[in-house]
């Protein structure tokens, strides 16, 4: 049993994410979903339960967290870790070993479990979670979805009573999310207690027992799944929540469809990595202002395609035509810009304004001014990019692309881990760029977002281009099938 008693908490040096007067009791074997806008405090609750607050994150804490009758203030981090297993959002940085077997065994090694028992446990973990194919692999070579499975397995191997998951689906494709759901159902059957903080709600509706909705650090409502489903669509949007049932999400068909002027053409393009074919025979033409969603499984080659479109990946065959003229890598590089999933990598300067003119020999002051204005960045012109929110950083990157006069933009999973409001803002931003006449590619797993923005969906899997679906009413069925809905 987890009891949170009169918890009030505020982070040091940070406004968001604090908690006020939280009282919550989670019974053994119960599965609780924590939801709400970014910064509402749902992640903070998970950090209280696994002891990271106050041991790792500093701040002002009053109240008590009690697990199975013990105040966790009296326990050490490793004692808590035997009761509470945590899975985090970022698959890249939550493993500690370089191969999957060692990683699954890692927690058990720390507990000092005898080697023979430990091997047996790794064996059964892989069998229970059906991940034998991931055994004894280099973790760096796995896709995001596979890494996340190994992370779950390493917690499962420790056999904790409580599972904590903090936005575990953010980087997963649809199939990997279904596997995650299966794994959650399995541990629930075993009578474990589960606490999940998550933006994506649809996959959890038949797993959870109660849904805790949070607003500005307080619990604003507790629902059963039935009550939660009954919330009206408009009300749910006001609450800043994502869709509960993807069957009810329909494409909006608002984006400009195929225009006559096909400015970009790909003719029989093949992508290779160290002479190994990744994707072959891509044929595509895109008009000015088109927004093309690129979908496919984790590891299908979407990133390689994006990098090739931008001229960053060189091993490619076939023709890239822009205005009927063949383009080599250098020309593509000059014309295109990629907004990365982790935007931090593309921000170099010490203020937003300096960022906008960074690396440009004779920057056009008025262009910088108007661009910052149109993206709502003027109030932050002197701020250090690192102090901005994720969405603001994304806009700074977009501003850079506009000032450099880039005509083709690629967004790599721009909505991973975003709540409804932020997702809508990204959608508006991309539509604005489309209206300005850019050709836009969006790599994404986010069905809601695709419905909201894209005019076409390009599906890549099994080394080839499987579909090129225009988003017209006739194609809704196919689109749903593509996202396995």
């Amino acid at each position, binding site marked *: 049993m987890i009891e949170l008693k009169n918890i009030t908490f505020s982070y040091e040096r940070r406004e968001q994410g604090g908690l006020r007067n939280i009282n919550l009791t989670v019974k053994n074997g119960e599965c609780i979903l924590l939801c709400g806008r970014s910064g509402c405090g749902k992640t903070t609750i998970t950090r209280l339960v*696994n*002891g*990271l607050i106050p*041991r*790792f994150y500093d701040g002002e804490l009053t109240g008590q967290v009690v697990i199975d009758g013990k105040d966790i203030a009296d326990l*050490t*981090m*490793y004692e*808590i*870790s035997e009761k*509470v*297993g*945590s899975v*985090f959002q970022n698959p*890249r*940085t*939550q*493993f*500690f*070993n*370089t*191969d999957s*077997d*060692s990683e699954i*065994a*890692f*927690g*058990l*090694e*720390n*507990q*000092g*479990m*005898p*080697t023979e028992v*430990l*091997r047996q446990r*790794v064996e059964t973990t892989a069998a229970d979670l059906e991940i034998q194919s991931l055994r*004894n692999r280099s973790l*760096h070579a796995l896709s995001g979805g596979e890494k996340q499975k190994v*992370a779950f397995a*390493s917690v499962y191997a*420790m056999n904790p009573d409580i599972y904590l998951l903090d936005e575990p689906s953010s980087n997963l494709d649809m199939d990997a999310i279904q596997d995650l759901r299966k794994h959650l159902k399995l541990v629930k059957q075993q009578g474990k207690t589960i606490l999940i903080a998550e933006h994506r709600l649809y996959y959890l509706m038949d797993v959870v027992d109660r849904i805790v909705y949070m607003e500005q650090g307080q619990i604003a409502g507790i629902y059963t799944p039935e009550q939660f489903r009954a919330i009206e669509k408009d009300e749910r949007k006001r609450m800043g929540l994502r869709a509960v049932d993807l069957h009810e999400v329909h494409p909006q068909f608002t984006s400009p469809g195929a225009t006559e002027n096909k400015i970009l053409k790909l003719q029989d393009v093949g992508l290779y990595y160290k002479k190994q074919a990744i994707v072959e025979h891509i044929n595509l033409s895109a008009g000015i202002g088109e927004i093309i969603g690129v979908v496919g499984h984790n590891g299908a080659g979407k990133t390689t395609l994006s*990098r090739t479109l*931008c001229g*960053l990946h060189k091993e490619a065959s076939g023709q890239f035509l822009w205005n009927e003229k063949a383009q080599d890598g250098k020309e593509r*590089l*000059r014309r295109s*810009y*990629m907004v*990365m999933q982790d935007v*931090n*990598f*593309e*921000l*170099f*300067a010490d203020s937003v304004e300096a960022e906008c003119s960074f*690396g440009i020999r004779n920057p056009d002051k008025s262009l910088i001014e108007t661009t910052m204005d149109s993206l709502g960045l003027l109030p932050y012109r002197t701020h250090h990019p690192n102090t901005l929110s994720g969405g603001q950083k994304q806009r700074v990157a977009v501003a*850079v692309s506009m000032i*450099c006069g880039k005509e083709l933009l690629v967004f790599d999973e721009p909505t991973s881990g975003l709540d409804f409001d932020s997702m809508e803002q990204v959608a508006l931003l991309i539509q604005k760029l489309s209206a300005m006449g850019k050709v836009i590619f969006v790599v994404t797993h986010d069905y809601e977002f695709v419905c909201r923005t894209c005019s076409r969906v390009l599906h890549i899997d099994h080394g080839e281009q499987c579909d090129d679906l225009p988003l017209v009413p006739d194609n809704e069925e196919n689109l749903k099938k593509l996202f396995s809905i």
Partner: protein
Amino acid sequence: MSNGEKRRGLWIDPRTKILLLLLCVLSATMAPSLLYEMLVVALVACFGIVCGKVRYSIIGVIVYGGFYLLTQAVLQMPSGNVQVMLIAFLGLVHKVYPCGILSGIIISTTKVGEFLSAMNRSHISQKIVIPVAVMLRYVPTIREDWHFIKDAMRMRDVSPNLKNFILHPAMTIECIYVPLMMAASKTADELTVASVTRGIENPTQRTSYVRIGFGIADLIVVLAFLAMFLVGQFYGEVF
């Protein structure tokens, strides 16, 4: 290996590796001649090859060979400021090179879990071991981060090549340094969180999925490096 895991090359205990590094540092700093240094590098490369790092080791030797020839050429040069400068620079390279290449081999062949268990067995304080383990784990992450940063720079027309480095050194360094630091602090936090929530601080005797312990191989490599060091000290005039 006993657990049926495929491992390329010989397995050496992490503690032995630390001892080797120590011997290598001593040999390199107290080297009597250039030829001796070349032999130290060759020994390190042999060690690398038996540990399964074939390509890395061969490239290491070839690059060192280049430095060796360059040094010989500089020594033939008429003496002057340029020669003094080059000799000072090359002298530093020769002292650091063998240890650098050995460190590379050690880091890439040591698993974090092995390292933790070995250190735990030798009763070395967790206050030292855990930060080093996080560091070991962080090294491959830098390589991944570097790929992203390189892409970002190229899209901004600030290519990370030698020409730009010479023309705009400050800007090029800023481009690499700033995002790398930003990513580093976040990555280090996330790695630490992932490890403490899985009980890395547990003081009980740690066990290991992979069997660790000293074997005959450890003895042989230590003897080889020790012999190298002693030969340098007592029969230095041979070279």
